[in-house]
């Protein structure tokens, strides 16, 4: 049976790659490879996954130097010469082996005012928003984010400016900025403007290129820049 040469990061911030030989199978995913190592070769390997079908956003890792979701990444598509190098997701603290601490990533969602803030109670009628409403369409375009952190790891700005909120948090803020039911936009726009916010983005589009859900955080960030410009000129910021 053909085999795959796999190098896997072991340790935390300090550590080294450990080599494994893994049997090659048809339609094998990178997550299958890591799971095989943990179940058959080294039970001490730490990694994170849950749904295995591209919904939960927990299995993102750096595969041959590129941030990817591992459950939907086929070995065929990424193995170079029968070799894989799997490391933890970039731009985040490593807890152990392939497990990163996602707290800084989600803390930035909170700092970007990523919480829905409604004004209606259960006693009010439903908000009626037409499916073809332009703002609704903007929300639809960005709402399927699974919070995997791939865009955050693919963004050079996050490395250059550690305070930068990052593509996912800004995308989340944009979906709320376009939500007619949300009443927290003034504070949200204040939170996402400036050096650590949308104005730091250089539109290099690493996030959009790498997003496994094919979203465009870049478009959301551009939308926030427009919304901030209008608010600043109207004096409502």
């Amino acid at each position, binding site marked *: 049976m053909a085999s795959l040469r796999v190098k896997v990061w072991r340790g935390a911030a300090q550590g080294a790659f450990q080599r494994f030989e893994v049997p090659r199978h048809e339609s094998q995913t990178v997550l299958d490879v890591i799971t095989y190592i943990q179940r058959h070769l080294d039970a001490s390997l730490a990694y994170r996954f849950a749904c295995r079908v591209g919904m939960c956003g927990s299995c993102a890792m750096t595969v041959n130097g590129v941030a990817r979701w591992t459950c939907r990444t086929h070995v065929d598509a990424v193995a170079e010469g029968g070799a894989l190098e799997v490391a933890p997701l970039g731009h985040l603290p490593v807890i152990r082996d392939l497990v990163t601490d996602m707290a800084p990533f989600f803390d930035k969602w909170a700092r970007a005012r990523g919480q829905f803030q409604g004004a209606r109670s259960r006693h009010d009628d439903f908000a009626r928003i037409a499916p073809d409403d332009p703002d609704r369409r903007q929300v639809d375009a960005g709402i399927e984010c699974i919070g995997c952190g791939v865009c955050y790891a693919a963004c050079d700005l996050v490395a250059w400016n550690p305070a930068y909120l990052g593509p996912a948090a800004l995308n989340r803020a944009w979906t709320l900025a376009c939500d007619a039911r949300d009443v927290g936009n003034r504070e949200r726009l204040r939170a*996402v*403007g*400036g050096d650590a*916010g949308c104005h730091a983005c250089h539109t290099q589009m690493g996030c959009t290129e790498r997003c496994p859900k094919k979203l465009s955080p870049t478009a959301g960030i551009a939308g926030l*820049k427009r919304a901030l410009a209008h608010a*600043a*000129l109207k004096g409502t910021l």
Partner: protein
Amino acid sequence: MNARGETLLWLVQRASAAVLAFCVLVHLATIIVAVQGGLSAAEILGRTRGNVAGLVFYTTFVIAAAVHAPIGLRATLGEWLGWRGASRDVALVLFAALLAGLGLRAVAGVFGGAA
């Protein structure tokens, strides 16, 4: 700087970029056309001195460059050197003044005086 200030800086940089794009095209076209037959420095100065349209155009060009470059440099200094805060902004205001001063001095030299 607060979100409003940062947003206004971003708008000013985009607006100055639009002005610069126009000015650079006009500037390059003028150079290419003007030197077709060969021109000496004295001949160039003979045409530019007292030319009010040239004075207005290049004054606009210089001011746009003096506004645009420091705002871009502001991000570069923050990302590459980690230099942020009021000291960076004061240094960049001085840099903008230097660019404007040197540029306007050149404009005055080329377009000032009688024809």
